[in-house]
C-alpha cells in the first residue's frame, strides 16, 4: 500500500510537469491546427539553456525560468514567424507541410545540440537534488515538489491570461473561428506567431523544472515530443483541461510502470498507453467521461 501511494504521489508530481508540456502543445494545436512535432526538442533547448546557466553562471534552475521562458518565447516566435507562418499563408500548400516543417526544426535542433554539447548525459546537482520531505511514511522528492508548485502557478497564470485578458480571448477566438476573429479586428498572423511562442514558453518552463530530476542529452527532445503527443491524445486533442488530465495520467502510469514492472520500462509504458488510447478510446479521456 505504501509503495502504491508513493508511486501515485511521485507520478502526480511529475504529471504536473507533463501537464504544462501538454497545455503548451494543446494551445499550439488549437490555434495553428497542427501537431507540433518539435515540442520536445524545444523543451530540450530549454534544458540546455538551463544547464548552461547553472554550469557557467551558477544560476539556480528554478530561478532560470525567468530567463528560459522569455528566451524560448522569442526563439519560438522566430521559428514560427520565419519558418512555419510562411507556409500557413500559402493556401495551396497542405497543412501537412507545416507539420513536416516542425519535424525538420526538431531534427535540426537535436543535431545542433549534439554538435555543441555531444551526446553525453548531463545533469546538475544542487543542494536540494537529493532532499526529500517525509510525510506519513511517504517521501516527497523536494525538486519535484517545487517543480509541481511552480507548474500549478504557471497553469493558473495561463488560465487568467486566456480567460480574463483581451489577448487571451483573442487567442481562444482565433482557435475557434479564424475568419470571425479576423472580422473582429484580430490579426490572425500575430496571434498565430504569438501562440507558438506561448506554447513553447510553457514547454521551456517544464524544461527548466525537469533538469534537476532528469538526465539531459539531445535525444530527450524526440522522447518528450512523443510524451507531449501522448498527453494531448489522452486529453482528447485540443482541450487544456484534457491536457492536464492527460499529463497527470501519463505521470502516474509511468511511475507505476517503473515501480511494478521495471524502471527501464518507464518510457515504454507511455507508448503502450498511447496505443491503447488510440485503439480503444480514439476520443481520448473525454470519451470515458461521456459514456
Amino acid at each position, binding site marked *: 500500500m505504501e509503495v502504491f501511494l508513493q508511486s501515485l504521489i511521485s507520478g502526480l508530481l511529475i504529471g504536473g510537469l507533463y501537464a504544462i508540456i501538454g497545455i503548451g502543445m494543446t494551445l499550439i494545436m488549437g490555434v495553428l491546427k497542427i501537431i507540433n512535432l518539435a515540442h520536445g526538442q524545444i523543451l530540450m533547448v530549454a534544458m540546455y539553456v538551463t544547464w548552461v546557466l547553472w554550469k557557467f553562471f551558477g544560476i539556480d534552475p528554478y530561478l532560470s525560468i525567468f530567463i528560459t521562458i522569455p528566451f524560448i518565447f522569442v526563439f519560438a516566435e522566430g521559428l514560427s514567424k520565419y519558418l512555419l507562418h510562411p507556409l500557413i499563408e500559402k493556401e495551396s500548400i497542405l497543412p501537412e507541410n507545416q507539420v513536416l516543417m516542425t519535424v525538420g526544426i526538431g531534427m535540426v535542433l537535436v543535431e545542433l545540440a549534439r554538435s555543441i554539447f555531444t551526446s553525453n548525459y548531463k545533469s546538475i546537482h544542487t543542494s536540494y537534488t537529493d532532499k526529500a520531505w517525509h510525510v506519513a511514511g511517504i517521501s516527497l522528492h523536494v525538486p519535484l515538489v517545487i517543480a509541481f508548485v511552480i507548474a500549478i502557478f504557471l497553469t493558473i497564470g495561463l488560465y487568467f491570461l486566456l480567460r480574463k485578458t483581451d489577448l487571451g480571448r483573442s487567442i481562444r477566438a482565433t482557435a475557434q473561428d479564424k475568419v470571425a*476573429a479576423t472580422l473582429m479586428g484580430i490579426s490572425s498572423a500575430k496571434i498565430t506567431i504569438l501562440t507558438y511562442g506561448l506554447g513553447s514558453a510553457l514547454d521551456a518552463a517544464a524544461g527548466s523544472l525537469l533538469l534537476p530530476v532528469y538526465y539531459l542529452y539531445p535525444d530527450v527532445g524526440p522522447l518528450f515530443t512523443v510524451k507531449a503527443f501522448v498527453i494531448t491524445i489522452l486529453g482528447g486533442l485540443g482541450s487544456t483541461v484534457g491536457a492536464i488530465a492527460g499529463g497527470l495520467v501519463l505521470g502516474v502510469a509511468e511511475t507505476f510502470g517503473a515501480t511494478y514492472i521495471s524502471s527501464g520500462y518507464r518510457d515504454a509504458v507511455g507508448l503502450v498507453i498511447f496505443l491503447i488510447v488510440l485503439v480503444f478510446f480514439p476520443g481520448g479521456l473525454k470519451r470515458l467521461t461521456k459514456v
Partner: protein
Amino acid sequence: MLKVENINMSYGDLQVLWDVSFEVKEGEIVVLVGANGAGKSSVLKTISGIQKISSGDITLNGESIANTEPSEIIKKGIVHVPEARRLFNEMTVEENLIMGSLHGEAKEKRYETMEKCFELFPRVKERRKQLAGTLSGGEQQMVAIARGLMSLPKILMLDEPSLGLAPVLVQDIFDIIKGIRHQGVTVLLVEQNVQTTLTFCDRAYVLENGRITLEGTGKELLNNDHVREAYLGI
C-alpha cells in the same frame, strides 16, 4: 458615405465579382439582393478586407479603403456580421460581445455599449453567461448583431441575418435592423429574402452572377418586372 467603384475580385482563377459599383449614403438601409452564389457575401468580404480586390476602388467618405487590413477597417467604423453568424461557440455570450470591442473607443466604452445591446436584445442579456454554441438560431443571430454593434460602427454590414430563422423571428430581426438605423447606424444588408427586405429598405441593388444588374428604391424594384419574375415568383 461608402462607395464601391468598379471592383473586380477573384478566388484564385475564379473571378466572382465583375465591375461592381454601388453606394451607401449616411443613414440609409441599402440592400444587396441576389440568388445563392451571386457574389453577395464576396462583396462584403472585399469591403471588410478579408478578400483583396484586383481592380476598382472602395472609398469611405472619399478616402480609399480598398485592400486595407480587416483590423483597420473595423477601426474605421465598418463592421461585417458574417453569414451563418460565426459566433465563438465555446465562449459565453458576454465574451462574444467583448470580442466585438477590442479597439480604441469601443474598448473604452465596452460595458456601456454592452448595456445598450442588452436593452436592444433582452434575450441576449438573459443568456449572457451561456456558451454561444448552446443558443437557438434566432438568439445566435441577435448575439452576432450585438457583437457587431459592440465595435460602435458607423456602417453595419449584415450578411443574410434571416438565414435559417422562422418567419416570426425574421420579422423581429428586420424590426431590430430598422431600430439600429434609427440610432444613427448606416446599414448595408445582403439578403436572399427579397420580398421582405425590399419593402423596408431605402435602396436596393440586384446582383446576378457577380454583376449589378438593377438598382433603385425598394418600391421601384418591387414593381420591376424582372424582379417580380425572377425573385418574387409573380
